[in-house]
């Protein structure tokens, strides 16, 4: 008997269906994958199960009893737990406070910090989820936050665990570790629902998979006896064309971007330091486990954090102490890893979001006024070129899917034909179709002569796109290697901080 059965679930927002007659059945002790394009309705379905959204129609049965959840509180009481894609942790509370938030254990209403911390430590030991229960969540890396989210479920004794794109922020090793832990939970009788865009993960680790498309459930299949091709066809209705990186030969000698002894402050006060140089038509990939200073490095490079020491030269121009605007004007484009926070004004439309760049670099401004005509023409062009799906140029970005939002960010950064693109996790959270598009665009820019600094925790992506690969660990570059016949184990070791012989520059 399935532990969970969702039948004919319907949910619409403002008249359009997010879920239409979706069915999902999860058995006890299985890892069940949920697959689908951006906007297919995966998150919506899980939010309904977790009591965040109220379904319009359909029924949910758990252990044979039909249930109605008014809020997550009810779901938690029935031992359901969910880790959202955008973590739901309070940054200004400690790990322990976040994990025990809303619980009433012994001693209520007083917080029994010590007992709770001990309990958390026991849990984290037995599942290999290393944390410090007394640190503030805002000091944690993304990976650590995810561990806290999972501990939150375990602390609450969840029997059905839902994870929305948990691997999007993890390195392959971390992902493997995560799935290993799922297997342990599975053995203890838990059921796990995982949303993911990585088909390989589904095939490697999951027992069954349900595919959603356009709000409808296409089918549920066993992962044994199905291959990646079949799955992606089920998901996007076509076959995926693998991205190919051709060799580029016109590398100029003079570097376009050069970081000399470039220092940046990391969280916790440690100072990282790197030397890097980028040539025209080159993609330099920086691989590394999340939280090794990538974010700080890039934000300092963009002038968003205090410049510590060293020099940044872009096209023979020293921009070490330049403002963000000046750096952008010098020809640097920036794709942040958090598009909602750093890249988009969600309440503005497509057209206006394209204006989000230094005033001097826009072509749609005449004098001090914005040329509306020009602005709309530009937006129309971009929407067409990047095939952005929307309900009009003025539709707030909020209502676009993540994939389409990301396309717009790319489009904007590419408009001014930048000399350098800094791309930080450019495909995080995107479905395979959108990912394919982004990769193609980055390669197109490369062909056009643009130098790209690609920072990603996704090693596959790095290997696929980069001409050279640098590995970052604890704020410094361990080694830089040409991307020909690279030794994956060596990169793995470098990422873990183990230096090996033969590191070439």
């Amino acid at each position, binding site marked *: 008997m399935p532990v969970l059965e969702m039948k004919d679930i319907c949910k619409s927002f403002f008249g359009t269906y997010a879920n239409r007659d979706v069915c999902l059945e999860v058995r006890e002790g299985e890892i069940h994958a949920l697959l689908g394009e951006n906007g297919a309705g995966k998150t919506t379905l899980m939010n309904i199960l977790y009591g965040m959204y109220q379904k319009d129609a359909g029924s949910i049965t758990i252990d044979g009893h039909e249930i109605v959840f008014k809020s997550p509180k009810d779901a938690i009481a029935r031992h359901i737990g969910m880790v959202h894609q955008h973590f739901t942790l309070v940054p200004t509370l400690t790990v322990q406070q976040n994990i025990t938030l809303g619980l009433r254990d012994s001693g209520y209403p007083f917080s029994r910090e010590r007992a709770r911390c001990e309990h958390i430590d026991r849990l984290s030991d037995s599942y290999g989820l290393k944390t410090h229960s007394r640190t503030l969540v805002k000091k944690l890396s993304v990976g650590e936050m995810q561990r806290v989210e999972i501990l939150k479920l375990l602390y609450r004794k969840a029997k059905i665990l839902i994870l929305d794109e948990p691997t999007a922020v993890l390195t392959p090793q971390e992902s493997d570790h995560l799935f290993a832990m799922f297997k342990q939970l599975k053995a203890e009788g838990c059921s796990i629902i995982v949303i993911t865009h990585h088909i390989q993960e589904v095939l490697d680790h999951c027992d069954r998979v349900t595919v959603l498309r356009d709000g409808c459930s296409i089918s549920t299949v066993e992962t044994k006896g199905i291959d990646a091709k079949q799955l992606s066809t089920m998901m996007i209705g076509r076959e995926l064309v693998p991205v190919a990186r051709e060799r580029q030969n016109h590398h100029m000698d003079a570097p376009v971007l050069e970081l000399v002894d470039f220092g940046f402050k990391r969280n916790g006060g440690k100072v990282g330091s790197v030397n890097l140089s980028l040539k025209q038509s080159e993609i330099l990939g920086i691989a590394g486990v999340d939280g090794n200073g990538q974010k700080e490095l890039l934000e300092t490079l963009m002038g968003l954090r205090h410049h510590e020491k060293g020099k940044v030269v872009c096209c023979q121009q020293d921009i070490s102490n330049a403002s*963000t605007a000046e750096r952008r004007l010098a020809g640097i484009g920036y794709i942040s890893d958090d598009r909602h926070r750093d890249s988009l004004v969600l309440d503005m439309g497509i057209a206006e979001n394209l*204006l989000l760049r230094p005033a001097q670099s826009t072509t749609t401004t005449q004098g001090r006024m914005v040329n509306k005509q020009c602005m709309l023409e530009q937006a129309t062009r971009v929407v067409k070129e990047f095939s952005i799906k929307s309900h009009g140029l003025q539709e707030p970005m909020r209502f676009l899917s993540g994939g389409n939002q990301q396309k717009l960010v790319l489009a904007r950064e590419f408009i001014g034909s930048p000399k350098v693109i800094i791309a930080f996790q450019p495909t995080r959270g995107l479905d395979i179709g959108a990912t394919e598009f982004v990769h193609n665009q980055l390669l197109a820019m490369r062909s056009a002569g643009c130098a790209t600094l690609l920072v990603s925790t996704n090693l596959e992506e790095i290997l696929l796109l980069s001409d050279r690969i640098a590995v970052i660990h604890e704020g410094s570059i361990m080694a830089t290697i040409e991307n020909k016949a690279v030794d994956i184990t060596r990169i793995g070791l470098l990422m873990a901080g183990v230096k090996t012989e033969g590191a070439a520059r």
Partner: protein
Amino acid sequence: MKRRDDEWVSLLVVTGATLLVAFGLIALVGSNLMVAASSFLRGIFGSSYAMSEVLVRATPLMLAALGVSIGFKTGFTNLGAEGQLYMGAIAITATALVFPGLPPIVMIPLVILVGFAAGGAWALIPGFLKARFSISEVIMTIMLNYVAINLVGILVRTSLKDPAYPYPMSPILPESANFMQMLPPTRIHAGLVMALLMVIAVHLLVFRSRLGFEMRAVGLNGRACLCSGIQVNRATILSAIAGGGLAGLAGVSEIAGLHHRLIEGISPGFGYVAIIVALLGKNHPVGIVFASIGIAALQIGSMAMQRTAGVPTSIASIVMGALILFLVIRDSRQSIAILEGV
């Protein structure tokens, strides 16, 4: 179409509810309902003078509310329009008294400029402190209101005092600093024209100009602007200055158009009511025109009601509070659903 109908239905419901409150209270004090209602309407529409008074009162409200709205767009919560208005009033007084001989053609632009600058400078203080040191502008602006009001008190007793009289007020300003009376005997003056021009200017600034775009973007997502190379602090500070300047113009307009001298208490809380006007007008210049006229009419009408029907002003205060609450309820998305459900 249905949507439009709902708007009207809900507006009717709001009007009805407000009237119910008003009539209930008036009946409680034992005033005659018909007299009260007719005097309210007469106070607003009764004569061309009455109607002009509504516009006279709407003028400073409009200017100050425009100022407040610019701040709100950038996320600068400017509760200091009252103080900025008084700074504008001080500025025009001082300027006109220092250069009494200037011809109007020089004087008028000068006092407008100086008034704008004074209001802007007063708002620059919290604007700068917010942008540079992230000090709460909410408190800062409230505190600066008190400071400005007391500053007026000091000035009209010292350097700007009329030496001919013992009263705490400035001398009458030279004629050249007076705004034109447009339709005598009504008190409508050129300040109204200035306010309407400012509506257009603010509309252009906020919705057409590059700077206005930056201001709105900063208000909606400052972090994204920072990452995009938009000068966030510049936008914040400029919006503070522009907003304060507009409130300063409200002070200029009151002095140059009505009082012709600086005296304490020229603003019966215009700066605070302006916040409500801005919010009711949805921070949109055109919305503000209607909201300021509406609120002015409400105030003028209830004062007339007090004069004729003896209805206490406290009822006007209650009705104003209630009306705003009803409007707020109406505006919330859910309430439309509720009204539909009923």
